[in-house]
């Protein structure tokens, strides 16, 4: 099992059954994929292609990779009724999340003015030419969606059985199943429930880790696109099991924003998904087809 640092988290790669040297070579290839993706699409790197688009005052022609990412993101926006929204970069910056997260690094004494809510729909894409026109106020941030997508792409580079885990966004393939410990959001050292997962992606959204202070107020990174401000969900944490890490990440965020009641209804309408919901009152709800091995 090998690890490296990327996207501000620790990434783990394992391909049990392969000789050590082969497993290491694959881990290096996966690390390179993460590094290239981060270089191209990070909101925090001034020389990334995404930053060039976020600065563009006129139409620009983007790479096939960025055009594809925009197309896929549009699909998630449509599928989630706009609750998944990557055009919230300006709101994140206004909230103080204007650089890579580190505990205490984003604290500030006074709040900034909240920007007008922006939409990916305000980004015009001419598919044949890949010419993109950014709407006023749109700042794109692909966040966890990009991390999940990169996990899936990395997983596809590996023979099964294999696991790619990027700080809780994971794809687990083959074998007899992998054990996934769901962290207790109120006690990060404790495990809330353990699940057996095979050929599925996993992701968790919570407001307990990426938090900072603005004046006297606690702020977190889960922006509700309906208000353009940090979510006031009654959920503390959502873990989703889906066919891919990308979908698990998108769904975990959407269910978090919907809250416990509407989030459960959303999941019941998508039987291919399973989830562990934890409310701010510490109530735990298991939804869908989950193999619980320890609770």
């Amino acid at each position: 099992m090998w690890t490296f640092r990327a996207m501000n988290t620790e990434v783990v790669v394992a391909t049990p059954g392969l000789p050590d040297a082969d497993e290491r070579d694959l881990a290096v290839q996966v690390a390179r994929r993460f590094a290239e993706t981060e270089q191209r699409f990070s909101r925090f790197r001034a020389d990334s292609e995404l930053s060039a688009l976020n600065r563009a005052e006129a139409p620009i022609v983007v790479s096939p990779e960025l055009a594809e990412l925009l197309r896929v993101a549009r699909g998630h926006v449509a599928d989630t009724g706009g609750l998944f929204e990557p055009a919230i970069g300006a709101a994140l910056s206004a909230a103080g999340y204007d650089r890579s997260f580190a505990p205490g690094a984003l604290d500030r004494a006074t709040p900034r003015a909240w920007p007008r809510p922006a939409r990916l729909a305000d980004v015009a894409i001419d598919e044949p030419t890949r010419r993109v026109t950014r709407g006023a106020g749109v700042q794109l941030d692909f966040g966890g969606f990009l991390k999940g997508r990169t996990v899936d792409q990395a997983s596809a580079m590996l023979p099964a059985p294999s696991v790619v885990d990027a700080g809780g966004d994971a794809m687990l393939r083959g074998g007899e199943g992998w054990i996934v410990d769901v962290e207790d959001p109120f006690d990060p050292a404790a495990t809330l429930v353990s699940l057996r997962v095979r050929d599925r992606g996993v992701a968790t959204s919570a407001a307990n880790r990426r938090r900072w202070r603005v004046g006297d107020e606690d702020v977190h990174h889960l922006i509700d696109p309906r208000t353009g401000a940090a979510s006031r969900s009654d959920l503390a944490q959502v873990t989703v099991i889906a066919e891919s890490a990308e979908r698990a990440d998108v769904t975990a965020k959407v269910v978090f924003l919907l809250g416990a009641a509407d989030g459960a209804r959303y999941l019941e309408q998508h039987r291919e998904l399973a989830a562990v919901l934890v409310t701010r009152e510490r109530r735990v709800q298991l939804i869908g087809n989950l193999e619980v091995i320890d609770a």
Partner: protein
Amino acid sequence: MTMTSAREWRLWIVAAIAGAYTLAWSQIAPPSAAPRRVTAAVAPAPRVAPRVAPTVRRVPASHPIRIRTRSS
């Protein structure tokens, strides 16, 4: 200079002025019948990570392998 050659000179001068005018106008405005083309800037080629082997560290694996999911 004869009358004939003077007329030829005038024709040459008129033709030269008309040619220069047409050339200059073609530089500042396209023919009105053709749509004006707006050329989009091309995003600067993103720098990708250098093709050196990234650093990976070996960590002990549990049996069976467990992962921990949390917000990250």
